[in-house]
């Protein structure tokens, strides 16, 4: 019988996963909450199931989703990213209910999701790590004492991190002892609120690092390979905006070493399915393990473009017990790919989300080397209750320069009106010489505030067309009556 796979997600990633399911000849089943009732993922799926008014709480409701899955004879669930993707409880519930969870086993998610456990596993496997502590003691005085002792040993600044955090959340920098006393209880309270787990730990801060990550993929039979590196250094407040494959570091030996380390790390964690091993690279080209993300990542498209491997398709096949069809030596990195997250946000207003607005024009670029993973359409009203990602644009080129040129052309031809988007900001970015040189680290956006100085589409013809629309609509020119 045709396999039935439930996509426990929304937005562009749901559409991306549905495509892979349908290409495999399986039945794609979508879920949705009420605010998503005009969303594209429920139109492209073979079946769509309403799970509640939400917002968000139903996409996060493990019991409800498992119940729905069982009622609809679901064989497997793909969690996408965000929502329940890295929730070990969800993977475990699938396992217990005989549903294939498309991702690593719950135990692995659990170990790697707990940053302190993860550090312990990596330490045992001799993986280089940024100096850090275990979970700080629950007793506040004790915790502060330990924290200050660590910080003074490795030197400020240090990072205070939520053990259960991830995706850039639950992290704060501490610069001195008095800040430590002040920040520790706040960080704990925040962690409790955000992750229902108030454990926190410390790590030395690597100043202005590059953020390099390695896509790894493993079957259930002990074969683990990597798909090369990605550079995700262009971030705003620890949130990635632009991702590049492969890393532009000109030291092949170093990159090979990083990739090999990633495979060792995945093996140490008994990792299966697709995952990402994140590293920080300091100015002296020392690299440190940061964490393993146990999910498909937003930026997986750049890796697909330079390797030719469909990661989501592979995920599904491996989850159902297939062997990896390729060995490490089969994987060739060819050319360059850049992905930009086109968000409904106003970069000039502190990237404030533009939810609630209707897309009045949607005209996307095309042609050689352009890939779009999105879910918006002309007339779509962006729900206010979800994230602001509209579409990921990934461009591919043989050389870095060619890729940047293609990116510029595509951004210039991208027209989205209604909500403000990050497109004009990215246009500034591609024209920046430092970006073009390919040499940037995580401090890049903070050091380039001028990228935010651009004007909206106030082209003369757009203004005149607005008047013509009004003359046409009213049947006379109200400004000449």
């Amino acid at each position, binding site marked *: 019988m045709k396999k039935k796979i439930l996509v426990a997600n929304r937005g562009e990633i749901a559409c991306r996963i549905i495509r892979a399911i349908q290409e495999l000849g399986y039945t794609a089943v979508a879920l949705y909450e009420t605010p998503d009732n005009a969303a594209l993922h429920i139109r492209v799926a073979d079946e769509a199931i309403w799970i509640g008014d939400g917002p968000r709480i139903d996409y996060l409701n493990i019991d409800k989703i498992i119940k729905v899955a069982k009622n609809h004879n679901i064989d497997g669930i793909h969690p996408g990213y965000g929502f329940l993707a890295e929730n070990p409880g969800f993977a475990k519930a699938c396992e217990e209910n005989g549903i294939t969870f498309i991702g690593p086993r719950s135990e692995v998610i659990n170990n790697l999701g707990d940053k302190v456990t993860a550090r312990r596993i990596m330490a045992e496997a001799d993986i280089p790590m940024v100096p850090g502590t275990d979970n700080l003691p629950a007793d506040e005085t004790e915790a502060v004492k330990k924290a200050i002792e660590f910080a003074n040993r490795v030197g400020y600044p240090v990072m205070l991190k939520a053990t259960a955090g991830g995706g850039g959340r639950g992290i704060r920098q501490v610069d001195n002892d008095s800040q430590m006393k002040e920040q520790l209880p706040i960080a704990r309270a925040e962690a409790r609120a955000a992750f229902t787990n108030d454990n926190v730990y410390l790590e030395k801060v690597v100043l202005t690092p590059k953020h390099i990550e390695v896509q790894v993929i493993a079957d259930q039979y002990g074969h683990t390979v990597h798909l090369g590196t990605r550079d995700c250094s262009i971030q705003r407040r620890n949130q990635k905006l632009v991702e590049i494959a492969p890393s532009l570091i000109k030291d092949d030996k170093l990159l090979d070493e990083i990739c090999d380390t990633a495979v060792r790390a995945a093996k140490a964690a008994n990792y299966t399915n697709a995952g990402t091993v994140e590293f920080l690279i300091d100015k002296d080209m020392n690299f440190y393990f940061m964490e393993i993300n146990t999910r498909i990542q937003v930026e997986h498209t750049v890796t697909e473009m330079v390797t030719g491997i469909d990661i989501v398709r592979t995920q599904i096949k491996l989850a159902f017990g297939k062997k990896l069809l390729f060995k490490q030596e089969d994987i060739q990195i060819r050319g360059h790919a850049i992905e930009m997250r086109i968000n409904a946000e106003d970069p000039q207003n502190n990237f404030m989300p533009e939810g609630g607005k*209707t897309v*009045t*024009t949607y*005209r996307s670029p095309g042609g050689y080397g352009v890939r779009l993973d999105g879910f918006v359409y*002309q007339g779509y009203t962006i729900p206010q209750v979800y994230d602001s990602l509209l579409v990921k644009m990934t461009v591919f080129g043989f050389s870095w320069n060619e890729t940047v040129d293609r990116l510029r052309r595509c951004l210039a031809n991208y*027209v989205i*009106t209604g909500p403000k988007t990050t497109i004009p900001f990215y246009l500034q970015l591609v024209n920046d010489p430092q970006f073009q040189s390919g040499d940037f680290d995580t401090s890049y956006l903070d050091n380039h505030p001028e990228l935010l100085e651009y004007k909206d589409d106030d082209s*003369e*013809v*757009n*203004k*005149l*067309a*607005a*008047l*013509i*629309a*009004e*003359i*046409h*609509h009213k*049947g*006379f*020119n109200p*400004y*000449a*009556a």
Partner: protein
Amino acid sequence: MNRIVQGMNIKEVLKTVREADGYYITNTARDLSQSDFKNRILLHTDLLAAEQREKAGYFSLEITGGASVHVDILRKQVDPFLKLKLLREAMPNTMFQTLCRGVNLFGYRPYPQNVIRLTVREFAKYVDVWRVFDFMNYIPNMKAVFEEVQAAGKILEPCICFSTGPEHTDDFYVSKVDEILDVTGEDIVLCIKNHGGLGTPKRIGDLVSAIKDKHPDLVLHYHGHNTDGNDIGRITAAVLNGANIVDASDHSFCGFYGPPPILSVMQTLEDYGHKAVTVDPEAVIASSDAIRDERPHYEIFESQFKGFLPTVQIHKLPGGAMGSSLEQADKGGFLKKMPDILHKELPLVQKELGNYWSVTPGSQILWTTAVSNVQGGDRYGNASGDLRNLLLGKYGPFPFYKPADWIYEKVLGPKWQQVLEEEGGLEDIEDMDLEKERQTLTERIGKEPTEQQLVLYLQHPNDAVEFFKFEEKFGKVYVLPPSIFLKRGGFDLGEDLSFNDHLGKDHLITIGPAQEDEEGKTTIYLTVDHHNRSYIMAAEQKAGAAAAEPEIGKEEIEELAAVGDVRAPFTANVCEIAVEVGQEVSVGDTLVVVEAMKMQTPVQSKVDGVVASISTKMGAALKPGDKLLKITNEQEKDEEE
């Protein structure tokens, strides 16, 4: 060569005109637009004609001034200064001429010297010939402008406004010319401003001859209107008797109330042996051909009445006000009463109010009073603020005689003599604090204004600000031809509209479908330079909802006023709110000032009390009976409390 070109000084110009073997022609495109198309001829059309008009070799092109500055920003959405700049680029040689309402400049109220100086200085960058008039022919009202024009080194053309009747003798007008020359000196062009197109050819011939007898070297410019169809006769008589320059315009746009065709003037005078020096008839024809196809798009602005109106000799309405007066009669539903108003009441009012010259703002006072007399029944019972000012002498002394006492009493009240004594006479206008005005404007438009923006703001504060905001939103719309800008009834689906923007870049807009949603919002789809775009139009007020509230009559408005519920007296715009909520007012206090047809009328309190609420705002468009504000009786208020 006799050609007069832009940049020549007044002495060179006068010398050239005096020595020329023939007469000159001014193309009064501005007056053509005002009189026959309600001032709506767009810059786009003027630019189409520019090349040939430049070749034609006119004394000047009258292209700004009068009401046109206001209409430029109010209805054509074009910067009057940018218009002149662009025309200057297209027509480097032809002198540009303006029409200036004396101390009222291009507005409707007197301005202080410093505003006049600033305005003249800014316009003088483009305008060479300054025709200046005062509707009372009261020379002191023009003196400030005379000084500033001469100081700017431009050509001053003072007017004597012309009319007919027993008082309007040659001697009177010659004495006015003397008065002007006393103030200006001899280096001027003198204009006979026949804004109504009044008098016979013989009458105009006699007048020109009388002035020339006294001042043989004076350069005379005759300006007329063709309302009765006979202006070519008057122009001919003027030239035969020594006028040096005459006004006419392009035949493909000539109508009924504006200037007659240039070519007909030339043909007529040629047979008398008088040549229009420097005018190339081929270019005159080519100018008309260049814009002929545009005329149908302006049809909506042509007069409700087609045909000449020889009865102008009776009612004397100026050509520039004919179209708008007939439109007002049509909209106000009293078109049928027009013969009565035009042929009986208006001439009577004219006589009763001193037989002065029916031209802005005096013509509006006559017209509004006549309409109100006929419509209201009670003659002079519903006087406008401007009529009151006229009687108080705020515009200057009556030229021939004062109105009868009963009119003063009717307008100013039983204690009219005391009112006249206390409030009467011309007021000194103090200089404005220009820095303060500049600051206010900066606040209103959110950026530092240019000098030219300040000038426009000082003439028409609210309309200028609206225009600046319009340009921010819609860009430089003068690039749109009348077929787009003045389009009625919407475009066809799939229709292609092409134009160049002000930077010269060409664009193509294709009209797509329109879609209305359940809330009444309409999305208009356009293909703009091959990109699909959509424009969302807010829901319109449903016709049913607005019509549900019945219009209330005049009596009812008065009844409501008597209990403190103050309503709009007629269709007008709010131009001043004189009170604030909580302010104490007494009977006769001005609450709100409304403006219609360039006339301001105070709405006064009929009760003593306190302003409880204000339900209108500055610039609001009012229908009769619309709520303005409420006044509560203090006693009642006490009881309530």
